[in-house]
């Protein structure tokens, strides 16, 4: 049933050290292996990570203001920055060593085991699909608001734009990864420029001229509990940066490009997040900011500069499109990898004979995305995305401990070794625990619904799907046998 091509370059990175030719080293991968093209560089990795995440500066992060007030949101922004720095450090070490399509999914397969990998694959698919849905919702709302502000006669059905966004980007991904990620590079740069221009235009060096922090900034309307609650949407500033790893099998030099692209992406986002908070909290009452769908576009409007408003309109539009584009790319690759390994039906593991893209996986999620986009509130889809990401980060913190235990430093070639182990993973676990409580505050039902989904899916995998999985094929790296086995 599968469309396959003989791989010119297998889907794993061969270590540069010579490994002993003994039975303790995994054998070669099958001769015929479904493969993606290796065409991406560090700039593409940066664009993929930042492109997915930068939209978090344009919408969604401000719900943290609604949950705890502006000061709580800033605290959450920095705490979430620490959380994601830990994620980026851990992820860079593992990904630069396990460079295969599916990113964290492939890592879990090699480090923890099939059931964990199945769950990680689902986290990735759900997190990116719900992020794609959120982007489509914002695109529709933005166009509706912009048309209204222009005084265009008649009404605009925003649902049509939501559907159009999803379908058009799915088609672009269907046609080819290089074209879509090159486009991502351009529109991500334009969206980032929009934030910089807004920051400069609001004259942050002259308090009171445009920004009115003295009059608009309030303390903690929910008290200290608000800081805890704000962590929920604080993750939105950075959620998806780990998506850089999804393209591992399509990167020319994973050991160099993945850590470089991920860490520079993280720095970009930390700067953009703080600038975004500063501008918005100095222009809007916190009650409005806490529920706005397009806060940066609103900030552009509040400056009174028509050109800036138009620029922020395009900036928001570009950011949402770039993000949705990257999300389709990432979700489909995770689903493709699961299909290739038979964790999901093998039919999804096919590569397009002409475009070399996982076209069936791309098309499969289009109706799901449309269904949620046209009928679900933005904060709910964002919460689903955050929860799936959060479960993945929790697993990642535990995974690095197993990785270092099974293959201590020096036993395999690592592209990057993160410092201060185990401090980053302990800090990550602590911040993940805090965020679960934050989600529970106000969104407890969704937390339980999401856990129910993953528990039932896990039971289905254990009782039904695992019998289709080839055991030995789950380990494809040229590594020695893990310690303790």
């Amino acid at each position: 049933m599968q469309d396959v091509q003989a791989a010119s370059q297998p889907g794993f990175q061969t270590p540069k050290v010579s490994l002993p030719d003994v039975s303790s080293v995994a054998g070669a991968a099958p001769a015929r292996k479904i493969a993606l093209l290796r065409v991406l560089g560090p700039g593409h990795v940066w664009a993929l990570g930042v492109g997915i995440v930068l939209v978090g500066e344009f919408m969604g992060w401000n719900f943290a203001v609604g949950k705890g007030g502006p000061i709580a949101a800033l605290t959450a922004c920095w705490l979430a920055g620490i959380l994601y720095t830990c994620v980026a450090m851990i992820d860079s070490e593992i990904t630069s060593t396990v460079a295969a399509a599916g990113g964290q999914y492939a890592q879990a397969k090699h480090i923890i085991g099939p059931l964990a990998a199945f769950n990680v694959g689902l986290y990735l698919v759900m997190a990116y699909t719900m992020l794609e849905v959120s982007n489509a919702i914002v695109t529709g709302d933005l166009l509706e608001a912009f048309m209204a502000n222009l005084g265009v006669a008649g009404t605009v059905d925003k649902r049509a734009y939501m559907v159009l966004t999803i379908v058009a980007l799915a088609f672009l991904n269907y046609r080819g990864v290089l074209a879509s990620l090159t486009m991502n590079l351009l529109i991500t740069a334009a969206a980032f420029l929009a934030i910089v221009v807004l920051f400069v235009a609001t004259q942050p060096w002259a308090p009171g001229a445009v920004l009115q922090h003295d009059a608009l900034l309030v303390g903690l309307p929910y008290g200290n509990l608000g800081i805890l609650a704000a962590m929920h949407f604080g993750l939105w500033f950075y959620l998806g940066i780990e998506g850089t790893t999804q393209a591992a099998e399509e990167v020319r030099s994973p050991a160099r490009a993945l850590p470089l692209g991920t860490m520079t992406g993280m720095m970009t986002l930390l700067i953009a997040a703080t600038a975004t908070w500063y501008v918005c909290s100095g222009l809007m009452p916190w009650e409005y900011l806490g529920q706005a769908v397009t806060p940066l576009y609103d900030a552009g409007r509040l400056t009174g500069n028509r050109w800036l408003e138009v620029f922020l309109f395009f900036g928001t539009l570009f950011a949402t499109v770039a993000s949705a584009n990257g999300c389709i790319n990432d979700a489909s690759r995770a689903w493709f990898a699961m299909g290739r390994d038979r964790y999901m039906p093998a039919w999804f593991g096919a590569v397009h004979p002409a475009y070399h893209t996982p076209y069936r996986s791309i098309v499969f999620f289009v109706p799901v995305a449309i269904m949620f986009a046209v009928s679900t509130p933005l904060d709910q889809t964002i919460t689903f995305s955050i929860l799936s990401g959060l479960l993945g980060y929790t697993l990642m913190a535990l995974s690095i401990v197993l990785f270092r235990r099974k293959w201590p430093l020096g036993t395999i070639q690592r592209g990057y070794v993160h410092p201060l182990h185990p401090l980053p993973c302990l800090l990550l676990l602590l911040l993940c625990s805090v965020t679960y409580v934050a989600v529970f505050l106000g969104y407890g039902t969704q937390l339980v619904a999401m856990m129910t989904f993953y528990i039932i899916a896990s039971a289905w995998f254990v009782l039904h799907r695992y019998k289709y999985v080839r055991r030995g094929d789950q380990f494809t790296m040229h590594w020695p046998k893990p310690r303790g086995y």
Partner: protein
Amino acid sequence: MKKGPYEPPSQPIVGQIFDAILMLVLVFITLYLPLWLKLAGGGTTTTEYPNPSWESLGQNAVMAAQWEKLGIAPEKAATIIGTRFDYNFNWTALAFTALIIVAYFVFIFRYSDHEYRDVIAERFGDDAPTKTVEPR
């Protein structure tokens, strides 16, 4: 001794379609249906402001000016300002939710390890020693 490879059954196309649809149904029932039935979402409280003015809503002159620039009158702002999150929670519910999450991860790690042993046994053999490779 290296374990013989496990040969999985091949899944007919009808079974593959059924499994794919099953995943969609699971997404629909567990994630979409609670939202559609409005069972999930932000727990909030609402304060009513009869005949609201910027003063009665607690907004200073700068805040009021920004609301107006956004095209929002006090009547509409009252709904936004009057809606707050309700952070009163039940400790038992919190403990139960925490238990679900912890139990889920314990199960994932324990069962994955069980499966992982099969993978390693098939790939490397049960009795092959662990080798250390020194990087050059």
